[in-house]
């Protein structure tokens, strides 16, 4: 029986069907989790730039997010808004662009004055581990805290390690020149665009 050509075909079919059904079943089982992981990563990222995520377990992130963050609307120029006691405390501007390898997505937090940076965080990146991926490290991100974006020219500038820093400048990561350069480009594009939208609002 095993020499017959149809045996090979039937065998392959049966084996494929068997393993595929397990995979599909398992994928369905984990689907919800995968999606909520993505959502939580994003929400944590938004909270993080305002220093709200420290010590919050994954299960409570969504709760905190709903409590303190307002969905983007026309008045916020498309940014998520950090609200506390009915006061606007800050804006979370989404930044996204192509890194050295794959898309990088993150959040840049600004105070209500739209100038002072409260923090930066990333929820999706696929840069080289140990090099470009260091953009996620505290050491790199903490540099942004308290910087004031420039309203003329590029809002933020990433300078080579060792260079002297101005009010809107941070150091790059050594060995990850490409990632930092691209990062600088799309941060500025997205922030400038958002500032433009907000300026349009103010003129109205």
């Amino acid at each position, binding site marked *: 029986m095993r020499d017959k050509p149809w045996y090979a075909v039937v065998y392959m079919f049966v084996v494929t069907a068997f393993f*595929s059904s397990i*995979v*599909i079943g398992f*994928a369905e089982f984990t689907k919800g989790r995968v999606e909520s992981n993505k959502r939580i990563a994003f929400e944590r990222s938004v909270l993080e730039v305002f220093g709200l995520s420290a010590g919050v377990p994954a299960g409570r992130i969504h709760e905190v997010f709903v409590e303190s963050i307002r969905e983007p609307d026309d008045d916020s120029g498309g940014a998520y808004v950090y609200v506390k006691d009915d006061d606007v405390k800050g804006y979370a501007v989404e930044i996204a662009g192509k890194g050295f*390898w*794959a*898309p990088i997505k993150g959040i840049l937090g600004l105070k209500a004055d739209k100038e002072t940076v409260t923090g930066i965080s990333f929820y999706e990146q*696929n840069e080289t581990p140990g090099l470009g991926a260091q953009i996620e490290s505290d050491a790199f991100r903490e540099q942004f805290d308290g910087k004031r974006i420039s309203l003329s020219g590029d809002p933020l500038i990433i300078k080579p390690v060792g260079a002297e820093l101005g009010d809107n400048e941070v150091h790059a990561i050594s060995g990850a*020149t*490409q990632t930092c350069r691209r990062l600088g480009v799309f941060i500025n594009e997205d922030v400038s665009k958002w500032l433009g939208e907000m300026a349009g609002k103010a003129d109205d």
Partner: protein
Amino acid sequence: MPISEQMWLMLVTCFSAVFTSNILLTYFLGMCPFTSVSREVKTSVGLGLAVIFVMTATTMINWVAYHYVLEYFGLEYFRFILFIIIIAAFVQFVEMVIDRYSPRLYQGLGIFLPLITVNCAILGASLFMVIRDYSFIVTVGYGFGSSVGWTLAILAMAGIRQRLTESRIPAGLQGPGITLIIAGLMALAFIGFTGVL
């Protein structure tokens, strides 16, 4: 994105796949044939050509299969199986066609084709193309560039190794050891290209 920008992006991707992010020297994909076949320039050329052909074609087919079949049905996680089956089937198909129409080419390339199915670089290129979300045009540039980069690396290595047969190398380093050290030096040299982009 306008088509002219796409074309430009394709060229850049192609260039970076050959030099700055060479699939072999920065991602270590396709190492097995690299260490075993790179002894002679002649066989390396054969294998290299086969890789260029198969990789360029399969990344294109896989792009279509991924974006029009798997995404349509929401079965993205099946890509591993689908890609490897497409690659295996494609290689088999090419082997048959070459055997039928050009026995001479078959003698040159034929023995390399079965080796290609398990060449990680081929599957790797398809997986990277998905993860980096390339458009079709860019994928063509990426598939072609990666395979050319791989071929370039294996050719350079074969050239160096042919000379090496005369050299005295410590016993433990002979064979794969010294090959890896040379590959490391090549990788270092290729890092120099990073500044170009």
